[in-house]
Structures are given as C-alpha cells and as structure tokens.
C-alpha cells in the first residue's frame, strides 16, 4: 500500500480496530470472570460492572499506541489469555 494512502486510511482502520477489539475483549472478559473461584452470580455481576471499563480502556489504548501494529501487539497477550480462559476449558 502506498504510504500516502496508508496515511489517510489509518484513522479509519484504527477506529474499526478499536470498536472490534473493544467489543471482543469486553465480551470475552465478561465470560472469563466465571473462571474466578466465586459464586457464579457474584462473578457474573462483577464482570458486568467492570465491562464498560474494559471497553473504554481498550479503545483508549488503540488510540494511545504509536501505530496500529503496536496497538495490535499490546492487545495480543490479554486476548490470548481471555480466549484461553473462555474456550480452553477454564469456564
């Protein structure tokens, strides 16, 4: 991709990436809380109460990072962890 196109496409890509990653992380984190050693209804409510903070923090991070690539790298570890907890038999 030519540098100039990339330059103007970046805000759009970041926005889409921010919305998608924030949605997925929020979703997975609100399921992953069930792995906590608490009563399920306590864990569920805690997850819901914190969900909006997860969403907001993810979006802020995506725009905080210097480039789209570093934004992706920063989210890699929490994403893998949450996927493992949600689908790896933890819940």
């Amino acid at each position, binding site marked *: 991709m030519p540098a100039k196109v990339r330059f103007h496409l970046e805000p759009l890509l970041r926005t889409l990436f921010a919305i998608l990653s924030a949605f997925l992380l929020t979703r997975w984190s609100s399921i992953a809380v*069930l792995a906590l050693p608490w*009563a399920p209804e*306590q*864990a569920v*409510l805690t997850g819901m109460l914190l969900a909006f903070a997860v969403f*907001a923090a993810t979006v*802020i991070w995506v725009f*905080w990072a210097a480039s789209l690539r570093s934004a992706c790298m920063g989210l890699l570890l929490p994403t893998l962890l949450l996927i493992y907890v949600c689908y790896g038999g933890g819940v």
Partner: protein
Amino acid sequence: MIAPLGRHVRQRMAQLHRWTGVLLIWLLFVIFLTGTLSFFRQELTQWMQPERPQGRELAQPEAALEHALPYLWQHASAASHWTIVLPGERSGLLDVSWRGAEGRGQAYLHPDTGEGVQVRDTRGGEFFYRFHFQLHYLPVLTARYLVGIAAMMMLLALISGVLTHKKILRDFFTFRWGKGQRSWLDAHNGFSVLALPFHLMITYTGLVTLMTLYVPWGMDKAFPEQEQRQQLIGEIFAFMPSTPSSGQVAALTSVPALVEQARASWQGAHVGRVQIAHPGDLSAKVLVEAQTGQADRLGISGHPPFMLFDGVTGELLKAKASRPAYDAYGTLLGLHLGRFADWPGRWLYALLGAAGCGMLATGMLLWTSKRRRKPGHSRVGLWLVERLNVATLAGFPVAVVALFWLNRLLPVEMTARAQWEIHGLFLVWLGMGIHALLRPLQSGWREQLGLAGLLLLGLPVLNLLTTDRGFPASLAAGDGVFIGFDLLSVLLALLMFRCARRRRGV
C-alpha cells in the same frame, strides 16, 4: 476528509476526544438535560398535578394502609395483583393500582381521609425519567442501545479529554475573557473539570443501570435458562414471582403486621411500596419494599431492601440478599439515581447535571467556532451543524418549557391528554428546528433563547392564573416545590436572556 492521525499521543487523544464528543453530542445534550430534570421527577409530577395535596413528611406513612386495603377489597377484589405506593414527603398521595384478568385500574387516595383525589392526566416527571434512557416514539430496545452507545462515547470523550490536557487542573482558575474560541475553550474546560468526578460517575453508572442489556454474555453463559436469570434478578430487585392462583379461598394475613416486621429489620426505615399477589387466595404473596431516600438507615444503595411473605401464613419467604457484588451494583445504581439524597443533595445533583449540560453545549460551540476559522472547511456541513446547534441547545429547552405550558393550558377533560402534552413538546421542538433552518444564525439563537426566557418567565404567571397555588399562596403554605419551581423559572429565564444577549458577539 478525516484528518490523518497525529504523531503525538496528545494529538491522537484530542482527535479521539473531538470525534467521540461530536458525533452524538445533540443526543447527549438532550439526555443530560432530561436526566438532570429527573432528579426532580416526583417534584415535577407534583407541580404538573396541582390537584395533589402538598407533600409533607408523615410520621407514619404506613398508617395509610388502613385506607388502601379496604379500597382495594371494595374496587378490585377480583384483580390478581395489587400495588400500593405509600405517601411520602415527595408525593403527597396514596397511590393504589391493580391488574388482573379484567384489566387494570389505578386511583389516588388522600392519605388522611382515604377519599379519592382526581388529578389531571399527565406523565409528569416520569416522562423525563423515561425519556433520558429510552427516548420517545422509538422502539424501546433500539432507543436503549442508542443511548448506551452515546453514553459509551461520552465516557471515551471524558477520558480522552482528560488525557489531552494534563495541565488542566493547574491552570483552570485563569479564565481569559477573550472573544471567540479561547473563551469557549475555557468555559468548556471549566464545566468539565470542575464536575469531572460527577461526569465520570454519572456516565459510568448510567451504563451500569442497563448492563444486563448491554453486556449480557456472562449472564447468558452462567445462567442459560430464563428462569435462572429471573431468579438472579429477584435476589437484588423486588420482584413478585409469577405463581398462578390456587383457586382455593384463604384469608389474607394482616398486612400491617408484615409491614411492621419488615420495618423492624430495616432499622425502622419506612416502607415505600407494598405489592400483593392473589389476595384472598391460598397462594397469596405479599412483597414489602422500603422507601428510597433514607440514607441514614439504608445507605445510598439504589436497590431498596425488600421482603417477600406468604400472604396466608405470614411466613418470610425471601429477603434482599447482601453480597459484595450485589452491594457494589446497588451502590453504583444508587449513585446514579441519587434517590438517597435529601433536598439540598438533590439540588447539588441537579447543579452538577447542569454543569454537564454546559460542558456539552460549550464543547459543541467550541467545535463550530474552530471550524468556522478554517478556510478549507465544508460550508454546507458547517451551516447544518450550526443550525442543529440552535435547534438542540436552544430549541429543546424551549420545547421542555412548552410541555409545562401545555400541562396548564390543555383542558383537563381532554382525551389522551398526557400523550398530547408530549406530542406538543415534540411539535414545538420540530417548529424550533424549522425556525433554525429558516432564520439567519444569530437571529435564530437570539429568538429561540429569548423565547425560552419569555416562556420561563411566564410560567409563574400562568401557574398563578390557572391554579390556586400561585406564588403568594405557596409562600404562605410553605410549599417548597411550588416556590422552588417559580424561583427557578425566573432564574433560568434571566440566564436565557443573558445568553440571548451574549450570542451577538460569537
């Protein structure tokens, strides 16, 4: 054309702040304004139903049960579900309602005499409360999602706004009264920073109030069945279980005794609502809920404690559970609703909410005044944005005041009166929108703000002419709601005139 992202992190935060702030700002302003009014939900209902007796603190609101129960036995003995809302300082009336196979009904009774009181048909403060999270005319779920998206954008705008200006706390007492952009920036910073804890709190807790709608995944995973989820909700909220009637006649136990039992376990807190399912049946249930607004006894939780009793034996079946996550949820909800607050506390809430409206309004004006200076900016887009600013920031307040006028002017016996008050609000708003499109910008601002001022100034006069609770009478009776409404109208009218005058220089 969207500008490329800045190289510096502060620039990117500023860009995020601008876009999350601007996209839904008109919706947010309307939500904030009606939400602020909702802190006075019951007071507005009192004003909009001047037939109600003046609200006063009752030593024993529970004594009103002796009027409510005979009334319900007489008028609604066939109904399957009764609800009794006991009178309080903020309502003044005993509210009984029922529903069943033969439909539903509702009546207001005088708390002392038990006689029926006819009040005009209006949604009162309830309209603003409903509107601020589910709007009007739209399907409820769609509107709630829309409000949720707007609230999330507001949260992002708040956080990115703070991150943009690190020094903001240090230099906000130096207000530069220049013309144009700089002074809007200072006003915007002032409104935002001063009430920042409130803005963050009200936005986050606003999202929390509808969290089972917005982030249901954990709950769906842990409790796949609808009944399980209802059971969880029933642990926190007073929720009458929907058991069918048994068909066998059995005498209803003494409800006042159950109420006393509940009060004894709530440090003597007053009871606000009593619900009875299947009265006179073997499967009768009685649900007793505490009144909100007793922070000294019940704390600030938005979930008032409740107790569910067997309606025949009087046995305690369930009470509100206290667990860490439930209490955290209750506290966040309570902070949003502000029902724990006494009247100075409510005014404080309203003042901070008004700062929120100011923050949104000045933010939007700042955005347009910046764009106006840029030579390359799209003129058509800017023209439209400026018109929408007028129609929302000045036009919506006009429409809200028009609702209060209609409340006094529409004939009391009119059919669908409550609906027409609300249609009236939206028709006036539409009119303001058309006016804003047709008139030159400065005239639009001046005329609409001036109109809002005139209507506000006229409210005390209208109230004096159409009811017997005008300013002198309410002053003599010490009626805080009516005195406060009149004084606030005049004060806001002066503010509107002030804004209308200042608009020339922008």
